[in-house]
């Protein structure tokens, strides 16, 4: 059950729209919405779901980058 934080970079003026769409992605918590970036935390039941989330972010219109910052996998069996 990894916990990951990401900074989602957004196109100018798009962060509110992007945040709305991010809120629909499973396992995602939005913690901070800035002018051109959004901080999200993912808490996924399986390690495989983590990357699925990450890929979903990049497909959202208005998202220009997605950078992982922190990844804790202390209870994950590889």
């Amino acid at each position: 059950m990894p916990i990951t934080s990401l900074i989602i970079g957004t196109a100018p003026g798009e962060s509110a729209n992007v945040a709305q769409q991010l809120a629909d992605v499973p396992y995602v918590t939005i913690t901070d919405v800035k002018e051109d970036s959004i901080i999200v935390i993912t808490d996924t039941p399986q390690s495989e779901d983590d990357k699925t989330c990450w890929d979903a972010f990049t497909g959202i219109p208005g998202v220009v980058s997605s950078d992982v910052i922190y990844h804790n996998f202390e209870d994950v069996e590889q």
Partner: protein
Amino acid sequence: MLNTRREFLKQVARASALAALSSQMGLVYAMDPPLEQDGLSWQKAPCRFCGTGCGTMVGTKNGRVMAVQGDLQNPVNKGLLCAKGYHAGAALYGRDRLTTPLMRKGNKQVPISWDEAIDAIAKQIAKDPSNFSIYGSGQWTIPEGYTAMKFIKGGLGNNHIDPNARLCMASAVVGFITTFGVDEPSGCYDDLDECDTVITWGNNWAEMHPVLFSRVMNRRNNGEKINYIDLATRQTRSTKAADHYMEFVPQTDLAIANCICYQLLEKGTYDKDFVAKHVRFKDNEKKDLSIEEYKAFLAEYNIENTSKLSGLSKEQLKYLGDIFGDKNKKVLSLWCMGMNQHTRGTWINNLVYNVHLLSGKFGKPGSTPFSLTGQPSACGTCREVGTLAHALPGGRVVKNAEHRKQVEDVWQCKPGSINAKPGFHTISMFEAFAKGDLSSMWVQVTNPAQSIPNLHKNLANSDKRFLVVSDVYPTVTTRLANIVLPSALWVEKNGVVGNSERRTQQWFKMVDPPGDARDDVWQMLAVAHKLYEMGFAGMKNRNGKFLFHMEDENGKEIKSWDWNVYKTINTDKILFDEYRQLTLLKHKDIAPYDEYVKTRGMRWPVTEQNGRWVETKRRFVANDDPYVAEGRDIDIYMAKAGDKKAIAWARPYNAPPEVPDAKFPFWLCTGRVIEHWHTGTMTGRVKELKRAMPHAYVELHPEDARELGITDGDMVKIKSRRGSIILPAWVLGRGKPAKGSVFVPFFDETKLINEVTLDAYCPMSKEPDYKKCAVLVEKA
């Protein structure tokens, strides 16, 4: 309790992201809550994977890596990591880690003890030391590569050592040396923060160097205007961010670069002062040319001719000429495998330098050519230590008697120990192994049975030779081996590496390797000492002591070959500080080991100034590089002619050795994907990455797919004159190749595209071209 801890970890995760965000804005805030409060022990380590050299913080508990986060204090990535980076910790814990030495007995590899393995390897080497070879890696740490080089060049007196870096950056090396007289770039990552125009020459940096890509895109997101030109043969994720996509016919980058130079001279927009002070011209026969003669050579690369050859429009070519001709533009050129894996890889490196030298866009903040590197220590280990068939540490070469003597003196070898004859470079090494001219080979930290081109030819008979493979997981190469040695991985050992921007970074061991896996350095030391015990002359230094003699502060010998002793000492520090003595000759000075412990790395030359160790941001540039002579703005101080000038070479367009024809009508280009590191042996064990990109595929242009009756997921046969494979099609996937070409990644050991690729190589750098050969494409 579980919920409490998970909530706490989420707070840490959020705090990390907030701190990273502020770090990108030039501010560094302390994290709240601080990392240490999550119950993990946190230490720095550069990422295990690509040549970017991102800093990570690794959280461990109970002898296991539990978490990874981007290192906020590391100026390379400022807290960011890519998908591979944050899974670097998970890559240690695949279920099938190699944990005990194995020896082939009949058709099986059976467990043996370390003593048996070391004994068998030493005896084999002693039988035929001059025909033993080492095939290493740009993923070797600096101490690992240094040990391997000293073992074979100092101990065995042969030079048959080459790294897989030959396959990825040898053309960059020869390009640097022929133009500037010395290897490695003037620029650095700070140029990403200061450029206003980026041109990538055949480089998908959004996937291959994603943190550097983000660094520029974040500037854009903050409202800065940055013009990005993607000059390529295939549309990629990078293309999506480009202002201009310019698709050229493979190999015609040579003509395009010449065309830009032609326009600069024809229009008079070149930087006359810079050229007069810092540039000389030469033809392919090394004869000096006047600028007029050089211009006459370029005449055939006018816009009209180049447009016909390259497929770029006249407007696109003119646009490129105007960009470089604009004195106010700060242009950063970036490239990696697209230019280096090229049968004229050295020439295209020279030609991009020509463009920047003529335009005066060199050595200025944000305006310079910058060669990206693929592997974490291709620069630090292969290029600086010099683990190449012709090289010695610090830019020395085996052919030079004075260089050999300098190295023999530091190594305390008997005079004449180092052979003056260069050894086999990578492709010739595998050809010699196939023919039996080499009797044995030790492979460390790489997987040639998947990565060497034209596998049928170059791996023939390898199962009949004596092959030792050190690795962390079973691979297609370990399956061929007589002896398999289980190795420690990343933070299971100490390490020092050097990245693309001349930055040397250090880390300490944090967890034990699994089972009986052991460090690559120890493996080499143990075999060297076994040879010494057997009376092998080369393993005795000029004082009769072990070649790798080490002493503690009391002058007592350290038994580094004894694992129980080795694991209690830091041999990296001893080896690194010995190697450091050899870095001064060509001004590649590095600091003492202990200085790197304190920092997130330093860019060489690192010199002691007023009691402080100071790095060099931009090399050859006044007020930064301490070796620039007083009164000069730019000083190409290693110019071979001693005139302090870079050479602009008149290099013509040269057609590739194999082009599509009626029988094999498509271009094949191979490469990497963001999820996997090289041959996928580590990233393939990370479930998240494996699931995200489970197998290789062939990417087709939609029109080609339609004409061939191929749709997504259909099985497609790719056939060349050398071999064939069957892969699923991906038509509207991540990338879009040019019409008439296909792309296949090489990470998948079940679909070996290198059975198809050509092993033609650049005659100067000996680097093979994986980016173009002719294939037939048909529905399977």
